[in-house]
Every structure is written in structure tokens, then in C-alpha cells.
């Protein structure tokens, strides 16, 4: 499987990738900037994401908001910020490709002249409300923050979430915006992918036309981070929340994206928890009926990944029981490994998921997004072949080795989220924690 593409790097450093797909008269415009919350410092958390919001507030030559002309052209558009990168995309009818490129290039080159303290204050309020809606007022919503802070030392940018701390957002100033923009939002820090019903040469011409005139910026300083020290002490934490049922989060630091062991743990997560016949679902939800749900995930990131098992207790059960049941399954895994049959099914699952997401030219996970992901993370937009090969080379043995290497109890963070009036449901000997 591949996503055929043509690549050209403009003199200002902007990577342009073009993929033709004539199935539907639409084009995806997708821009990745190599900046995320990993580039923030303690005390300045949440800024990369706040800045993403400002990118939708209008630029010098069209200052009536970013959405208006694009929605009128029939576009779907959005953006997102992660620890690794910030992306922006539009899916437009083919007749609006010029418009989309005009708009994207205007905000890449001319955002600051249109930014005002009023826009900044307004979007800060919006982001604080996003934080309330998606984290503070949502059951279990603060667990991610406690986990991040426990897994990574406070100097490490993975110790906070992309949404940031309230006090940092409150203290962010309009003058921070300029510096951040000039450092990170330059063409040499970006990758532009165009995918859809277009002619490659024409698309490259358009990309040059709209983007070549934007001057390059200086190279941001290389991110120098020591890998987090290998933990040798298990952490057991308790977070009281407005929830009915307690939930257990078990987390381990795991190999970084594309490193040895990453694909193994990806497939292992699937073997453990995808579908009702998966190991953990079967044991906890079906057979023992002590959980309402269980999930496992390898969250791959550039500096370091995290492997997590998350399980919610059924009424009448506590997290010590859940932990014991999960431990039985992990011990069995480390002892006996997985079967060839389980591995094959997970490979098919992975292949199918990949193909399902590549049915879209645009949006999150569509072909344009995937080309940019490979380009930004590996420098090779055609990395798909090597990516899939990683999964082909996984064996039951290599999964067993990865499990044994990474799932030590002394390496884990065990967070219990429990109802306010029932701390007794937590994994025993847990210490109280608070979300910052």
C-alpha cells in the first residue's frame, strides 16, 4: 500500500506534497507546523494551543475571521494541537482551491498585523471554556493531567497536557504571541499537503504562487531533553472526582514513536482490548463482570510514548480487584506470550483501520494528514511502506519481550479516580493527588 505523492521544497523551506485522487470533486489542504506543547516551558503551558485559536481570527488581508469566506465556499475546516505539532486543514470543492491557499498563506505570512489584544483576550476566554467543557466539567476529565504530571519530571513538556494550566493561560500576554509566531510559524517550520481532484503540476504552481513569497524564519533552537529517568518506584495515586463508578488508569513509559517496541505495543494494545473477545475485555467485562469497560492504548509520541490500560469498575467492585484481574492477564502475557492467531487478527485490524482512514483525502487522519505526519515525524512522506513493514515484522516473541521489558510494576503509575465519598474504592495504599 502507498500514497503516491510528488514533493517539492520551496526556497523558503516550505515542504509541498501533492497527491491526486479524482474520486470526488474536492481538494484537501493540510498544513502542519512543527510546534506543539512539547515546545512550551513550565509557566507557559497551553500557549501552542491558544495560538492555534488565534490562527482562525483573521489575518492582514482578510480580517473578518478565517471561517467566513471558506464556509461560504463550501469548505469544511478545522485545526488541532498536540504535544508534537499543530495542524490546520480545509476540505474545499475544487473551485475554491485558490481561495483556501490564499487564506492559508495569508495567515502563515501576515497574521500578526491583524492580531489585537481584544482577539487575544476573547480566545483566551474561549480556551478556558474549552478546558472547562472538555476536562473540568467532564467525569474523569482531569485524570490525564494527573497521569502526565506523575509520569514525567516537571521540567519535561510531556508533564503537562496541551490544554495547559489555568494560571499559565491566565498569565499569558499578548506580547508572547509575536515571539511565538516568528519562531514557529514560518514556512521552514511547516509542511503543506494537497490531496484530491487536482493536477499535480497545477497544484505545485499554486503552492509556489501563494507561499513562495513568505520569508523563511530562523531555525528554532533544537529541543534538548533528557529522557525521563527510568522509574524504579511504583506510584499509586488517588483523584477524587464527581463520578459514580471508580476508574483505574495504569500507565507506563514506553518506546517513542517508530522506535523498537512501538509497533509491538500498538498491536499488543489491540490484542488486550479491541473487541469483546480481547483478553482484558473478556476477563474483566464478560467473565468476571467486575468492569463496565476496559481499554489499552500505546500513545506514540516523538520524545517518549505512554502505554495505558484503563478500566472502569462495575457497581459493587473496587479498583484493587480490577488491578488484580489485570495483573493476572499481564502475568499470563509475560509468561506465555500471545498466539500467532491473535497477532494475525491484530495485523488485519490494523491494516483495515489504516485503509478505512485513507478513504478520506482530508480531515484528521485522511491522506493529506498522513503524508504530513510522515514528513514531519520522519522526513519521508513515503514512510508508509516502512511503517507497515514495522507491523509485519512483529512476532509473538517480540511482543512478549516488549511486555516483559516495559510492564514492570515498579515502572508504573496507577491512578484511581474515585467518587468523592468513596476513597475506599481506590487501589489500596494510594496517595491523594490533585490536578494542577
Amino acid at each position, binding site marked *: 500500500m502507498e500514497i503516491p505523492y510528488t514533493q517539492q521544497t520551496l526556497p523558503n523551506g516550505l515542504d509541498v506534497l501533492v497527491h491526486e485522487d479524482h474520486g470526488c470533486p474536492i481538494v484537501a489542504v493540510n498544513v502542519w507546523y512543527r510546534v506543539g506543547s512539547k515546545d512550551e516551558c513550565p509557566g507557559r503551558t497551553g500557549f501552542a494551543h491558544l495560538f492555534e485559536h488565534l490562527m482562525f481570527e483573521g489575518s492582514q488581508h482578510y480580517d473578518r475571521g478565517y471561517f467566513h469566506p471558506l464556509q461560504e465556499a463550501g469548505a469544511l475546516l478545522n485545526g488541532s494541537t498536540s504535544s508534537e505539532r499543530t495542524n490546520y486543514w480545509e476540505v474545499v470543492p475544487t473551485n475554491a482551491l485558490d481561495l483556501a491557499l490564499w487564506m492559508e498563506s495569508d495567515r502563515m505570512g501576515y497574521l500578526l498585523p491583524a492580531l489585537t489584544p481584544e482577539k487575544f483576550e476573547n480566545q483566551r476566554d474561549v480556551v478556558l471554556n474549552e478546558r472547562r467543557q472538555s476536562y473540568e466539567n467532564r467525569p474523569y476529565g482531569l485524570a490525564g493531567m494527573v497521569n502526565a504530571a506523575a509520569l514525567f519530571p516537571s521540567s519535561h513538556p510531556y508533564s503537562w497536557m496541551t490544554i495547559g494550566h489555568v494560571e499559565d493561560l491566565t498569565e499569558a500576554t499578548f506580547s508572547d504571541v509575536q515571539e511565538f509566531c516568528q519562531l514557529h510559524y514560518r514556512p521552514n517550520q511547516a509542511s503543506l499537503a494537497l490531496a484530491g481532484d487536482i493536477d499535480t503540476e497545477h497544484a505545485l504552481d499554486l503552492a509556489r504562487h501563494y507561499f513562495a513569497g513568505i520569508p523563511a524564519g530562523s531555525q528554532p533552537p533544537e529541543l534538548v531533553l533528557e529522557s525521563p529517568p527510568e522509574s524504579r518506584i511504583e506510584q499509586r495515586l488517588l483523584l477524587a472526582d464527581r463520578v*459514580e*463508578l471508580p476508574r483505574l488508569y495504569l500507565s507506563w513509559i514506553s518506546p517513542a514513536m517508530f522506535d523498537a517496541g512501538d509497533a509491538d505495543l500498538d498491536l499488543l494494545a489491540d490484542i488486550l482490548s479491541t473487541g469483546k473477545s480481547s483478553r482484558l475485555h473478556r476477563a474483566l467485562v464478560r467473565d468476571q463482570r467486575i468492569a463496565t469497560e476496559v481499554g489499552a492504548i500505546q500513545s506514540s509520541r516523538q520524545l517518549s510514548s505512554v502505554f495505558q490500560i484503563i478500566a472502569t469498575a462495575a457497581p459493587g467492585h473496587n479498583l484493587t480487584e480490577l488491578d488484580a484481574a489485570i495483573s493476572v492477564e499481564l502475568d499470563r502475557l509475560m509468561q506465555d506470550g500471545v498466539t500467532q492467531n491473535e497477532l494475525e487478527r491484530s495485523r488485519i485490524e490494523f491494516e483495515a483501520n489504516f485503509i478505512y482512514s485513507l478513504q478520506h483525502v482530508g480531515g484528521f487522519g485522511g491522506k493529506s494528514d498522513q503524508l504530513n505526519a510522515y514528513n514531519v515525524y520522519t522526513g519521508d512522506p513515503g514512510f508508509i511502506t516502512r511503517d507497515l513493514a514495522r507491523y509485519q515484522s512483529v512476532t509473538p516473541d517480540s511482543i512478549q519481550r516488549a511486555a516483559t521489558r516495559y510492564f514492570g510494576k515498579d515502572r508504573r503509575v496507577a491512578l484511581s479516580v474515585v467518587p468523592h465519598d468513596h476513597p475506599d474504592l481506590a487501589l489500596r495504599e494510594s496517595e491523594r493527588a490533585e490536578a494542577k
Partner: protein
Amino acid sequence: MSVDRTELPPIGPDPLFTFPRPVKHTLANGLTIWAVEHGAMPVVSACLLLHCGSASDPENHGGLGSLTAALLDEGSGSRSALEVQEALRQIGARFNRHVTADATQLRMTSLSRFTGQALTLLAELGTCPTFDKEQFTRVKQLRLDQLVQARDVPSANANRIMVEALYGDHPYGHNPSGTEASIQTLTRDHVVDFHREFYQPAKATLILVGAMPAEQLLDQSATAFQLWCATPETRTTDLDTRCEAHSEGTQRERLIVMNRPGAPQSELRIGHRGVSRDTPDYHALRVLNMILGGQFVSRLNLNLREDKGYTYGVSTGFTFCRHAGDFMAALSVQTNATSESIREVLKEIGHIRDSHPVSNEELVQAKAALTRGYPRGFETASQVAQGFANSALYQLPDDYFTQVVPSVNLVDLETVRRVAQEYLVPDQLTTVVVGDRDAIATGLTDLQAGELIEIKHEDLISN
């Protein structure tokens, strides 16, 4: 040539697009199959549409249809529950059930090379589930546990309170998943009877979309579904009659509050009853909704998010079902701006209806957004399958997709202003607030948005 940044580049003529058309076939058992060749990726998406949704749940047994659907992959034909799961896993198939007020959809997506197996499985799950006693007991308990878990989800509470307030004992007056109290009443016999009554070949439509010739899709599905036999009718439940029996009545302005002490935001729903899918004003109402709250640049979102910063976002929507419909605004706002946000929503509804009617510029923008964006809904196999499932459910004409853009374009200023007056009824609006009562009480009283009713957490659990 340098870029002209003095004005936006013009948008060219709309690209031509040929909408997919199905090849239709009816099996001897009465099952209608629609097959569509679509796409280049090796994917096939199937949807078995059954014309029974949560509205078909018997009175006081809300959640029956959804629990029935939840049990389909817990054992069927000769396969045990785990064998079903294994079979799905071996081909990487996605099996999802989607129960709405009007319909149950069983959706199966698989890689093309597994089409035969996927269709065989879909047929087996849909038509011969065993409803094993032990699995029934387990899955029912799991549903109850999930409903317990949802007690603290503000949006789930707000949605439920709103649906019950708007529809009362109308067949649409409950969520498809049911409530703790209604699920408690269900027995295995209920499930078996529901399946026997509604999962009938002559009452279903199978839609298949994928990267292979339609004839081939038809052949494969005929093989898989031909053994599905109609069972004799046990009884006839006339949903039309039941719906008519619950006339809408006059709705009054109400403000329903559920306390969530210490909540940083208030979850809001503001709405009233609307119209069914067959309304001749369907497209005009969609245009109106775009302007009021149906897109980022809508009046409500620009006001409450982009001007005031009270919320991460606000949206409105008209829901058009077979027998009824509603209009609703949904948003979550910071606690100290609760009454102010409600006031603004009510004000905007009043404005677009009366004092600040839709302008020509807004009309042009909204129509363009709807029409120019329309073809992108036909990119993937599952999107196309959903489009046709909708056509089958609401008995839309075969060329419906080609009619949409011209129909939207016909909506003129006079029409959109008329429907705003006709279908937005300020003195019938129900407002639901799930938030910190003590922090917002004074503001809410000052609002004068109708009778103030308080709903307690316990009421939701015991009903």
C-alpha cells in the same frame, strides 16, 4: 507573479458531480437490496436498515430496541458469542448498531476481500441471534451499569431532560438507550418478541456500497440473505396511531434546572417541538438553521463564542423525524455567564424571527455553504451508505441527491423569513440547565423564561 492580496480570489463555477445511483433488487423473501459501486479503496460498507427505532419501544419499556440490537452479536446461528467476535476479528470488520427514534441500522464495514464473509456475518447477526439467557442477563446488567455511569455526565442529563420535556409520553419521549427504571422492566421475552416483530425481510432495506460492480454486490448479498424467512405477524403495532394519539398540545415556556453543585459550566439546552421530515419547508429550515446556529459563522456562535467568549461553541439544529421533530440549541457556558447566555440565545431567536430578520447576504452565504459543500458527503463508502439509508428510511425519491442543491437554491428571502416566523416560537421554548444552582439561581429568576421547575438527580434515577 506576486499574489494579489487586495481581494479574495474568485470561486469558479461549481464542479460537476455525478451522484451515485443504486441498482435495486428484491429477494423472494421481500428484502430490498440497494447496491452501489463506489470508491477506489478496497472497502465495502453495508447497512441493514430496519424500520424500527426507539419509537417502537413499548410504553414503559424504553430501551428495548436498543437492547435487542446490543444482543445481536452475543451469539447467533451456530456461533457462540465468542465465536461471533472471533469471526469479526478475523476479517477486521467493523460492526456497529445505531438506534435512533425511527430506525435501527446495523452497519458492517470490511475490506473488499472479505465481503462474502462480512455479509454472511451481517445476515447471521441480524436474522438469527440466539438471545442466550445468560448473555441477556449479562448485557442487561451491563446496560444498567453504563446508565449509572452516565448519571454524572452533564450533557447526557441535559439531553434526557429535554427529550422528556418536549415529548412527554409520545413514542419519541425517551432516549434510545432507555433509563435505569425502564431497562429494569425488560425480560428476554420482550427482546425475542421485538426481534420477531420488527426484524423482517419485508420491513428492511439492505444497502451495499463498495469498490466492486453493483451486480457483484447484489449476488454476494443475495447469497447471504436469501435464507432469511419472514415470520408470521404476531401483532401489529401501529406507530402512526400511537403518535397521533399524543397530540403536541401547547407547549409553554419553562425553565428546568438540575443542580450540579460546584460545576464550572452550565450545560444548556433550549428548544421546542418542531416538524417531521416530510415538511415542505425542510430545506428552508436548514438554511435558516445555518444562519442562526448551524455553522461556525452563525449568529449565535459569533455572539456567544467569538464576541463574548462565554463558551467553546454553540450549535442549533432542527431534528426531522418521521412523526415529529424539534428545534434545539445546545451549549455549555461558564457558570457566571449562565443567565446572560440564556438571555442571548433567546434574544437571537427573537431577532431572527422578528426584529432582525435574515439578510440577503446571510441567505447567500448559508445557501452557498450548504450547496457547495454537498458533494464532499459522498467521498467514502460508509458516507454513501448512510446517504442511501436516509433515503430509504424517509422514502425519498431516487434522484433525491441531485434535487438537494436546486431545492436549497430555491429558498428565497421571503421563504426563509416566513419559516423563521412560523417555526421559531419563543413562548414555547423550554430551557434546560444542568449547573450549580446556588451560583446561578438569582440570575435565572431574573430571566423570566417561564415557570421554574427543579429536577433532582434522584428523579432521573427512579424514572
